[in-house]
């Protein structure tokens, strides 16, 4: 037996993943819309697991599943997770033209696209880690450009690996909408997620999930993720 030199997951960043204990019904979700994150975070969210993030794996999920073409999400994830800001940019000695309302770009900001890709990659990572066959997961986001009526992911969880995330029986596919942010997700994005699922959930056993990955503030270390079940 060859013993690897590096071992264990203790040195890797971890993301705590929670489950919102109640099912959100499409008929009442607009109450949540007003103050949804407080509702969610002030409730007794159930801790599912601490997921160690191996950056090289994350990059593979990114390449295979994320919508946009951004590479080295392994590197980006570490920066975004720890909120590592790049050093201030060099600025010229002369000031910008007077009264032009122009200022020099001195600090770069975090990118929403990168946050979105981190969220999508971590979502697939999470599904795989709980035993979902990810070959039966389809990222159908590009189809939004055609019709606009489908959410981010369709999950044919034939092994019922997601049964602990979902209450009661469910039809396949499970529809998933993923939202990610470096700070608290704003209510409009939550609203978007809900309306996206509202187009596809028809019957009692149709099931949608919203996967939110966020931080309480940009400079908080480490992301937190919540899985929310949505039914008609």
């Amino acid at each position, binding site marked *: 037996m060859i013993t690897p030199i590096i071992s264990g997951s203790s040195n890797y960043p971890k993301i705590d993943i929670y489950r919102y204990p109640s099912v959100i019904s499409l008929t009442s979700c607009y109450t949540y819309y007003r103050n949804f994150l407080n509702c969610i975070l002030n409730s007794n969210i159930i801790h599912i697991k601490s997921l160690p993030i191996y950056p090289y794996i994350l990059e593979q999920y990114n390449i295979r599943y994320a919508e946009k073409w951004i590479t080295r999400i392994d590197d980006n994830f570490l920066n975004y997770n720890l909120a590592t800001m790049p050093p201030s940019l060099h600025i010229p000695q002369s000031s910008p033209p007077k009264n032009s309302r122009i200022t020099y770009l001195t600090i770069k900001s975090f990118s929403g696209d990168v946050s979105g890709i981190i969220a999508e990659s971590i979502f697939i990572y999470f599904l795989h880690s709980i035993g979902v066959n990810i070959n039966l997961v389809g990222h159908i986001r590009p189809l939004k450009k055609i019709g606009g009526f489908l959410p981010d992911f369709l999950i044919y969880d*034939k092994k019922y690996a997601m049964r602990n995330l979902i209450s009661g029986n469910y039809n396949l596919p499970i529809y998933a909408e993923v939202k990610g942010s470096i700070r608290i997700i704003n209510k409009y994005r939550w609203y978007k997620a809900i309306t996206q699922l*509202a187009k596809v959930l028809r019957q009692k056993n149709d099931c949608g999930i919203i996967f939110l990955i966020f931080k309480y503030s940009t400079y908080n270390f480490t992301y937190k993720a919540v899985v929310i079940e949505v039914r008609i």
Partner: protein
Amino acid sequence: MSVNEIIQKLNEAYDNLWLGAIDTARDILSSIELSEKTLRKYEDVKRLYKEIKEKYRGNDTLIADRFREATNNREINMEYIISGSIHEYAKMLANKLKLVIEIKEPSIITKKYYKYSISKYLETKYEVRILFNNSVKEINEQKLLQKLKNMNFRVESVPVDIESLKSHYLYISAFSSLYFIELIALLPRAVIIFSFAKSERERIQQICEEVIDSMLTLDNR
């Protein structure tokens, strides 16, 4: 063709695109065929959605509710919508791929249990992309480590503590006085970066296959 078969086809096409097998990806996308009934229903859905979107412009809640009601009333189930959408997307992508046929694609080497392509960065640095067949269910890490050790590599591997990923995932870096190899696998894909101290153009294919073969968990190979 069922919806989950279509999803599998789409993922398979993406995998082949990643490998550089554009013709294969296009063939897979073109093989997604739907019944006349499904296509008709899907056309209905598109028209309906467009009408609703125009009528309730700016109110996403109403658009979602009305769309759901309208498709329910017309007995258009989600299967028509999903398979129709993917079918349309697949056709669009297959057509786009016709345009890139002029670009010289990397040559794909097909073996019994996998196929791979070699891209040259430099005379001394190559990226090899490997796509395993469905018959390869897991990676034989121990055999690979032994193989590399026999090739006089010092090997570092990063094991994963997540049970369901253990047999699907591998990260190894191996180096000797003349070579550096970085290998990342997440089935059905794997990438190997080879860096050599001097050009090994003639041997790259042989070294590559030796390494890949040792990853396979197949008794009758």
